[in-house]
């Protein structure tokens, strides 16, 4: 349940950053932010900030480097939330 909550919340965060030819339905847990969802790499830093705000966590540079796919993001969020 928790995972599903994270996933839906994350999709909402990603939505405005999707280019015109990618829809929210194209997002899957395995989606790669840059290679598959075609998100501008400059916008990844904005997604990280939005994630921090939405989940009340702080991501370090290492976390950001590891956050390649939606699944990566969920794992990092889970880790941060649990260790809080």
């Amino acid at each position, binding site marked *: 349940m928790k995972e599903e909550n994270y996933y839906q919340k994350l999709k909402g965060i990603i939505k*405005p*950053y999707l280019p015109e030819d990618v829809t929210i339905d194209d997002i899957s847990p395995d989606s790669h932010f840059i290679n598959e969802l075609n998100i501008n790499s*400059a*916008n990844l*830093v*904005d997604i990280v*900030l939005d994630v921090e705000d939405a989940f009340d966590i702080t991501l370090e540079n290492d976390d950001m480097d590891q956050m390649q796919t939606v699944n990566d993001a969920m794992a990092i969020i889970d880790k941060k939330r649990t260790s809080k």
Partner: protein
Amino acid sequence: MKNRVVVTGLGICAPNGVTLADFTKTLQEGSSGISFQQELKELNFGCQVAGKPKLTSEYINKYFTPLQLKGLNASGLVYGVIAGTDAWIDAGLSKAEEDEPDWDSGIIFGTGILGVDKFRESIHFIDAGNTRRLGSTSVIQTMASGISAYLGGILGTGNQVTTNSSACTTGTEGVIMAYDRILAGKAKRILTGSCSDSGPYVWGGFDAMRILPRKHNDSPATASRPLSASASGFVPGSGAGALVLESLQSAKQRGAKIYAEVLGGAINSGGQRGGGSMTAPNSISVQRCIKMALKNSGVGSKDIEAINGHLTATGKDPVEVLNWSLALERSGLDFPYINSFKGIMGHGLAAAGSMECVAALLQFKEGQIFGNVNIVDLHPEIEKLVDKSRIPVKTIDYKPKTIAKASFGFGDVNACVIFKTFKD
């Protein structure tokens, strides 16, 4: 044969109107776009009135994607995108296809300083040791060329995309730069214009210089008084104006409407010599600029039927009128009609030249010379030079064939452009 250059599109986001229709109406009626600013009062400004475009968030949302709207905090950028996009649409042009830019179209869109509110926001993050919280939006909203970059991305232009900056001359200079590039055959069309942010961080420096009026905080509509003896400083303004300049050949091929022809212009500087300084123009260079503009346009001084001056409503207005008079060798009843739009919109700073070029060009379309407002006491030095009838205080029906428009800026820089009704 020399390329001829025409104006095929106009766009505006001004204190007195954010659509061409509203803008035209306020100029015809002389209704003021200047209003009291509570924010300036709370910050203890001497001048608490200003010109600021009236926009709702619903209106802004039409011009930006939801992503662009996230963290958007750069008013000049908003004004510039609105005016620029509207000018493009007004010219009957469309955005480039997804896969290829329009190689023949470029952008020269100027500003003085962009995104000061965004910059302030960033400074607070940085000073708090929180630089990473800036995200990706800080740079693109605060780089001077942010405005041309935004418009370039929205429209998909593949020619030169740049931002010029020459203080209050910026907008008029841009028109001449665009004209030159099309004349040289390097582009078929250029979206040119300029924008200026609103707010205390842009206007504060001028308030500190004590060159803004302080006695009209209770009567904003009468604060800006170009050409008057009672002029006591310029009212700070903001906004954006935009023009599509295009080769005549391209305009004809598209069957585009033509507002006017750009006959030519001139740009120079007084070098802060001979009476010129950082803040005051060298009169000789102003006269040279006007005379060069005539020469480059192939018109005589007798051909000028109307002048839209820089005329900011400081004590220097009589000097400007004298410079026009000496450059054109005309005075009294022989002087062209002359007006200043700053009485209505305030001084738009970097946006002034483009907003005023748009207004000057609308006079061709309407067959009118828009009236000067707030002249109850024409400056006696000006009245000695120019017959009162040449300074209309109400909009008059008169179809000008040739209009001269000039702007002057800090740094002792000048620009003068000559527009003419289009005849094949």
